[in-house]
């Protein structure tokens, strides 16, 4: 199988590392070669962060370049727009509509662009946008946005529900399992 590419993007501290851990576990169990590339250090302090997940028969590069992503999963709307050039022409965006002002917007040096979902669609991207923060809060914690997004992404993957459930069990601490399972389902069925 040709290598497939999933980018997970967001704002440092939003929990993208758990999402990539879950995807990595899931895809390795399906028998794929997998590479996951993360960012640690300074960017984690509220900066723009990106994680690359690649899977297929044999994966070489650990990163995803412009025009290569089959999926972009985004925790924040502006970040989806920022990484849009990395999406393949027929790629799919799954994004939360949450907006977090970056410092240049807070200081007034820049404006947060409006109508990003429509603009990304006009640029040819398939965009699945939803209020993941509200769903995460409904599941019991604002921190569960990552599982809401994974639930939504599972729509587009041809994998059995049990495989996702197994991966969630393996990657989430036992005391938060129920909450995360709920978040996954709310995302999946939204």
């Amino acid at each position: 199988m040709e290598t497939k590419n999933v980018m997970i993007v967001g704002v440092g501290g939003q929990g993208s590392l758990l999402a990539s851990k879950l995807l990595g576990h899931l895809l390795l169990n399906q028998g794929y070669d997998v590479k996951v590339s993360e960012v640690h250090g300074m960017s984690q302090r509220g900066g723009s962060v990106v994680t690359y997940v690649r899977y297929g028969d044999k994966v070489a590069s650990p990163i995803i370049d412009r025009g290569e992503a089959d999926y972009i999963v985004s925790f924040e709307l502006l970040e989806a727009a920022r990484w849009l050039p990395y999406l393949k022409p027929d790629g799919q965006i799954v994004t939360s509509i949450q907006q977090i002002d970056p410092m240049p917007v807070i200081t007034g040096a820049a404006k947060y662009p409006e109508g990003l979902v429509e603009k990304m669609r006009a640029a040819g991207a398939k965009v699945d946008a939803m209020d993941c923060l509200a769903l995460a809060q409904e599941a019991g914690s604002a921190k569960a946005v990552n599982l809401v997004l994974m639930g939504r992404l599972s729509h587009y993957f041809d994998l059995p529900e049990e495989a996702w459930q197994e991966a969630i069990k393996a990657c989430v601490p036992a005391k938060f399992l129920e909450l995360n399972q709920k978040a996954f389902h709310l995302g999946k069925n939204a």
Partner: protein
Amino acid sequence: MKQLMLGNAAVARGLYEAGCCVVSSYPGTPSTEITEEAAKYDAIYCEWAPNEKVAMEVAFGACLAGKRSFCGMKHVGLNVAADPLYTMSYTGVNAGLVIGVADDAGMHSSQNEQDSRHHAIASKVPMLEPADSAEALEFTKLAYELSEQFDTPVLIKMCTRVSHSQSVVEPGERVEQEIRPYTKNIGKYVMMPGMARLRHPLVEERTRKLTEWAETAPVNRVEMGGTKLGVITSSTSYQYVKEVFGDTVSVLKLGMANPLPVRLIRDFASRVEKLAVVEELDPIIENHCRGLGLEVIGKDVLPMEDEFSQNLIAARLGGTVHSGAALEDVIPNRPPVMCAGCPHRGLFYTLSKNKCTVLGDIGCYTLGAMPPLAAMEMTLCMGASVSSIHGFNKALGAEGEGKTVAVIGDSTFMHSGMTGLANIAYNQSNSTVIILDNSITGMTGHQQNPTTGYNIKGEPAGKIDLKALCKAMGFRRVRVVDPYDLKACDQAVKEELAAEEPSVIISRRPCALLKYVKHKAPLRVNADKCRGCSGCMKIGCPAISMREGKAVIDATQCVGCGVCQQLCAFDAFESKEG
């Protein structure tokens, strides 16, 4: 069983399997997780040392005593540890000694983009360079074999994309090593001129033997494919080359960065029509090839700066370049920021308000240089704030002393701020040093240090009292302030700058991200009271923004620190309880 493993975790696994017993390191992105992961194996003694030089010397002592040892650091950390490294090359080892160093091409979290391979060449120490996690594990074990066979420390060079990528590994079992009894050997271990002169020829002879080893070593491998182009490459660059060209080109993948083979490269060059070298940062393999009289494509088409990617290789060497759509809108940058509730914020606001000249250092607080605070004007390397302020004030005299401060974190102060402070005390400049004590090593992801009272496993440990330390160094004026208290900060900064003797301010409050730190409920803005003056925006808190002319607080980020409350002239920020 096959599992996904971070490159750094794979090095740690390699340490475990190789029977390594002692690990001493200083944290630094992207190297930190090697030591954090090693600490999860009970069979390995692990510690955070105050700096990389100490760590390397601890590892040297352990190998001298007869047990396999390791120290890990980032590229700039190897500069700090260069002193022991260059002479350990002469002494050699007793049991195996391996040094992990992680470069940061692209400067994801670093102050420069130096290439550690230069240190390997200059110190004449062999260096292995894995390209994924499986190799990281395998090469770490091999490094111990080489170390003991050739009587030398061995460097393992990682980089951000190998350190922080997970790929598939198959872990093995630990093989315990018999202790190699320490024996007194003054000629080998006491490096004074008479002895060192006798050791140097052995170092040169060792490099000749290692070069011979490199000619046929399995870590240097030829993958013949199409012969129109042959590519010599290593590390993560190898992965990009394979991604772009697959088997359509021939590849010589070098797993050993120093010493480089000669016959192997000549032979490979003779089998291809054109030769290219693909290596991030400096042209080390390329210059080696040119030295052999070979014609190569290299830095004439590839950059010296930043990291590579598959599109870059494709664009420069003739492959398929991918592209995607972009919006017409300008997408605002999202630089990293001090977190909501960060204790550094109140102090930097105070420095900004007092128009201080701020000489800074390495850590989360370097973000104090970013707008709107913009309250740091120099950052060089670990500890430089404390040493530089002394020079700054000696040059400018009273003009500088009255408004200049040095700021340095607790961990950075332990790393190399103390020696600078000793210089201020000894050579007497009227300098004001502020230690930003957030009770943890923050930027690298919360590592303990000598001031926190806990060791790498979170167990109680020795705790250095910063105030007592500064007093013992001869500072009479040492005071502690809470950076959440803006009035107290302002008073402390004004008084210490005015004082006619050197002083230390310890700005003390634990990092807001520490698990044990209890947060208050998020504040809210009373829209009737808010006049939209934007006074609260001066502190650059990511939880506060202006919407329709009024300040609003993002309740998912706010930790109720109350710094904005102290700034608001209209009492618009209210606690939930109130």
